[in-house]
């Protein structure tokens, strides 16, 4: 009985909100819209920041290798956007980028010749970068 009444109230209130907005809408002017909130609110913990960057690159790589048709320059552009949100412009010089790519490849279950091809392309055949990709791949 109580629940019935409760639902009637809720339904009435909900009907009123239909006149307004139902769901959350995307608002670019939201209070935490820029990176300030996380920089100001949390301690400057380097390993945390690196882990977050790696997670984002890993997720992105994981999705990319599932793409029906891979376009490498577009991948790099997307990577640059992710890196910028972590304050990194020269992502090619950051080993975390390649470690995370390696982790993403492993998570996407890329193996054998396909893996070697990706490794070569992503690293531009740079030995150090290939090593970082392998390091990430082995760690995942």
């Amino acid at each position, binding site marked *: 009985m109580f629940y019935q009444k409760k639902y009637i109230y809720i339904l009435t209130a909900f009907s009123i909100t239909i006149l307004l907005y139902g769901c959350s*809408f995307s608002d670019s002017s939201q209070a935490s819209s820029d990176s300030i909130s996380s920089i*100001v609110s949390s301690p400057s913990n380097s390993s945390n920041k690196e882990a977050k960057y790696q997670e984002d690159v890993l997720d992105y790589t994981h999705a990319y290798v599932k793409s029906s048709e891979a376009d490498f320059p577009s991948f790099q552009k997307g990577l640059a956007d992710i890196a910028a949100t972590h*304050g*990194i412009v020269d992502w090619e010089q950051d080993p975390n980028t390649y470690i995370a790519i390696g982790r993403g490849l492993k998570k996407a279950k890329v193996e054998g010749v396909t893996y070697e091809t990706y490794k070569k392309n992503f690293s531009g055949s740079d030995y150090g970068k290939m090593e970082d990709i392998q390091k990430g791949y082995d760690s995942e």
Partner: protein
Amino acid sequence: MCYFNAEKPRKRKRSQDLAPLSLDSGKAYKILISSFLLLIFSSYQLVFAQNLINYIYIESNEGNSSGGHAALQFDNDVYHYQYTDPGVIRLQKQDAENFEYDYRFAANRSLHTSQIDVTKETYSSLRDYFNLQHQTQQQQFKALDDLRKDQVLLQSFLSGVPNSALRLKGAGLFYENSGFLPNQSSNQNIQDRQTSPTIIALNNVIKKKYGKAFLSQRISELIQKIKSLQPTQWQKSIATVNDEQYPRMVYSFANQYMDLMTAVFALQVIEQGLRLREDAYIVPPNRLFELKDEELANLRLYRKQLEEGLVKLVNSKRPDYGYALLVNVARLIAIDTSIIQKKLIVIDTFDSNADIIDGKDFSKYTEQLQRHLSDTYTRLINTKLLLTQKKAFNESNYSALEMLVNRYTELSKAMTGNQEIRFYGANLVPTKSIVLPLLIIPEWSKEKLDDTIKKLSVYQEQYQETLKKLYPYHLIIHNCVTELFRSIDKALMRQIADSNPTIPLIIAESTQRLGGYVDTAKINFIPVISNDAVRNHYRVIKQTVLPSFRLMKLNELYMQRHDLLVYLTENNTFSSTLYKHNSDDSFFIFFTDDDVVLRPVYGAVNTLAGIGQSLLGLFAWPYDSGDMLRAGGSGVLMSLPELLFVNMRKGSFKYLPYSHLSTTKPSLSNWLSN
């Protein structure tokens, strides 16, 4: 148990308010035993595994998501669906702390969380599905933007007039918007400009490594590439789009053109040794920014690292190396100047079009601004300390330091009088841009331009329609709740061997993995009811209420002062010490989120206040374009549910300091240890 919006007894103390709600049980000994077992089980979970998914119900409030909202949290990532352009519902991913700041603090809504216990496999499959869906949508909507950009750029070529919607990021650090003429290989922008010793030195290093003609050759190659650019082949991408498959990525014509142009500008900066623009950097007045010998030594080390990176970057194969060059060349100049002046000088990282807020608007928020300033100061000091540590200072540390200096300098202005300040829009990396000048144009005939523009228009319309069909928004059948559960179902369907799983199979899979099934075809599409459904059906091991910002502070006041005094002071907007009315909220008198008994009475007063404001709004219409009338109308609508004991409006908070996040416990960002 009642789940009406924040119906907390007025005198409830903070400690009670934050305690997890008890699970169903009858007798005391049963509660004791089940609590004991739960404690052991929870401890086991915390120590041995973290396969918990957090279902979050967000209470309603005025404006954005007035009917309430729902989200799903995996570790520190919160996924939720939002209504967005062009009339679709899209999956968003936010850091837990940003999400909490937006909804619990600024929007002042209580969050009800339910921790669902799942296996590692279920956790991974659900999390991976949400991630993949988020990435897929990001790419799909980016492709729609890229299609529009292609169209706008080609129209600019046709008309010969640059379009301000297309901007070259980073170029604004060295170039002005004006001074460029179409088809002009050199421009007034760089005439009569003094050169930068830092860039000349960098250019010498580059010449030594790659040869004297390297930069001019590279610029010539870029110009040739621009001239021979061809239209994007969009047909294939548009034909293959669906919500399950990560889309075919396309490096669009406009993106290629803008990247190549940015690279031309960047290489030209180095070749001609251009100085930074006067407004591209910040010279903070404060002694806080003076650099000690130890800090200078580490800054020199970082400078060396930066220069080495730049030498590699000029020869990079990444498509957008021009932007990275512009940013890091600008930083190199700023660091050299810092070393010479023994004082931290940084690049201005605010957007070129960052909103400027009049100092008068801040007059009500002096206390908040002071706190923002002191928080930024603390973080700035801590980040600057990294310069004294032996561990190598890296780019992300430098970016954080740069942004904090920007923010501190800007906030300081607000504290010294009624100056205009940029409160939002400081970035972690500089983005100062210029409108894309039409200096070099691909060699296309007018017919080819016309034809391509026509095709693009058709593609764009077709693609937009496809996305609208894939992600339709509907208040009842496709809202923030239904889409969450639809995605959960889809993720579970992938675990079922049957290629065409029936609903009973999905229900069985959901029951096995989550403890039950939530059917949004029923009334569960309403956020508050979905919360009940999750708690009734899923394997929920812990429930918590994270009170809204005002309720949290109110509880603190109840603990410090006399109850009646606090109640009388804080129950209305006139005498409240916690809340100050702001333009985002409609006009109201009484808060009703913490008072159930008197809610209809207060609601009646609030309704009358709304009607009053609407009447005044009618007279004010010629002067305020109907703003007051709208606010009054919204006030009435928000007050009507209060007559039925239902609270929606809670008031919102502007310019709240971010540090509330780190001082508040429990919170979403530490929910596993709550």
